[in-house]
């Protein structure tokens, strides 16, 4: 396993107005690995990964104390550009959310806004992304049909392809299977394992089995605090903290 630290959170505290959502979180995200974040609803998992690509910037009246690094560069420094950051740190959301455009246009959108105009290049990249997202065979004959016609699982893989098209280095998955059936979920999990060879992956999940299946590292959050962070196998087989043990054995949450 690669031990290079790709992203790093250092003493992160985050507030919505006066409510503290994250308390002094420090966490290393290793390159080319899958880091899962588990914990009950409202524990700050989503808030945390939305800091990694500065999506929380869009919410008014929030405040961050602490630092987040991508390749040792502070992503919240004055010189850092959130638009540039989001090109490098992509995101797949909980609900499949394709644009009401064609399959092709959905994937080309990220290239388009990044000023990539060369038609051949865009086409190659679209096909490549669809292949990587394991969707190519299913949609190759209907690239110009509306993306909304796809099933939920296909839409989510389309969203993954759309994210891959801009060549991110890190991909954040925010409960990507929450609205999918078990077969679609299995496909997405398989895909995540495939993608970690090229990308660094952080996944928020409600589903502990999912974390156990896909993640190399797992972090357990509770009420805005990072309770335990370890290699997945160790966290699940020999949790050091009683709260972690209670959670993974299903005593609460």
């Amino acid at each position, binding site marked *: 396993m690669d031990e290079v630290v790709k992203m790093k959170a250092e003493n992160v505290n985050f507030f919505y107005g006066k409510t503290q959502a994250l308390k002094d979180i420090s966490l290393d995200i290793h390159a080319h690995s899958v880091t899962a974040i588990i914990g009950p609803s409202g524990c700050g998992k989503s808030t945390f990964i939305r800091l990694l690509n500065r999506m929380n910037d*869009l919410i008014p009246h929030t405040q961050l104390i602490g630092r987040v690094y991508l390749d040792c560069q502070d992503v919240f420094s004055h010189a850092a550009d959130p638009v*540039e950051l989001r*090109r490098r740190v*992509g995101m797949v959301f909980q609900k499949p*959310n394709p644009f*009401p455009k064609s399959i092709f246009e959905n994937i080309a959108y990220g290239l388009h*806004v*990044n000023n990539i105009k060369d038609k051949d290049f865009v086409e190659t990249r679209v096909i490549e992304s669809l292949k990587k997202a394991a969707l190519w065979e299913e949609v190759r004959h209907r690239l110009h049909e509306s993306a909304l016609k796809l099933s939920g699982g296909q839409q989510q893989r389309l969203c993954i392809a759309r*994210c891959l098209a801009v060549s991110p280095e890190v991909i954040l998955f925010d409960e990507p299977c929450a609205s999918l059936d078990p077969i679609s979920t299995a496909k997405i999990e398989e895909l995540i394992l495939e993608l970690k060879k090229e990308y660094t992956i952080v996944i928020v999940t409600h589903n502990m089995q999912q974390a156990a299946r896909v993640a190399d590292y797992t972090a357990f959050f509770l009420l805005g605090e990072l309770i335990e962070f370890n290699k997945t196998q160790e966290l699940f087989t020999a949790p050091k903290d009683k709260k972690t043990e209670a959670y993974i054995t299903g005593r609460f949450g």
Partner: protein
Amino acid sequence: MRNPQRTEKIAFFFLFLATLVIALPVGLVVIIIISKGLPAINWQFLSDIPRQGMRSGGIFPAIMGTVYLVTGAIIFALPIGLLAAVYLSEYAKDNLLTRVIKLAIVNLAGVPSVVYGLFGLALFVVFFKFGASILSGSLTLGIMILPIIITASREALESVPYSFREVSYSLGASKWQTIRHIVLPNAIPGILTGTILGLGRAAGETAPILFTVAAFYLPQLPKSIFDQAMALPYHLYVISTQVPNVDEKIRYATALVLLVLVLCMNLVAILIRYQFRKRKKW
């Protein structure tokens, strides 16, 4: 003991009655105007100039005048209204200035139309020296329908799901790119609907054009935007009150043309909205 079923019946009766009271006048207006006006409508009426002191001939200059005025109003009001709506719903921070502007827009919608007429007279006709002209009239009508366009556009922009914007940002799009490529295209049907409703309002109003553009009688079409023009609502007012012995049929036929024009615009708005709902799947 109260009998809930009887209470229900009484409530139903009054609710139904109120609905009927609304529908009745609308139906009557349409029926009366059609039955009295339709016999006078023919090609000559639609394409000829008014003759014999407006007692015969057609209403072509008034139709064209209204078309010019409405077009002018929209050329002025749509871009400004749309840009303002984008600013207000996407960029404006929630502060005192924004709240004052929003309040001003709401109030602008409530100003009586004759006040717009006087305002147009003072500003465009007199101060800017545009005279009584299509330009002055269009600008006055444009200001009158601005609040309609801004309100409809804001609603359309704000109804675009937040998740679309979120994805756009997450792919490295800037705020303007997100608005330009994601928010605006998805808001266009709503914006168009509002615009057409504004057009209908502009076509039907008399007071704002009274001092700013409307000509009592012009046998030819205007040659430039600095000319006066006839317009349907004002023409209707003139032949109904200012000219004696105008055949009732002509008055109702003029009203019918105006009504059909406005109803057609509303119909287009409804069709666009219908298409939009059919396509919208989020």
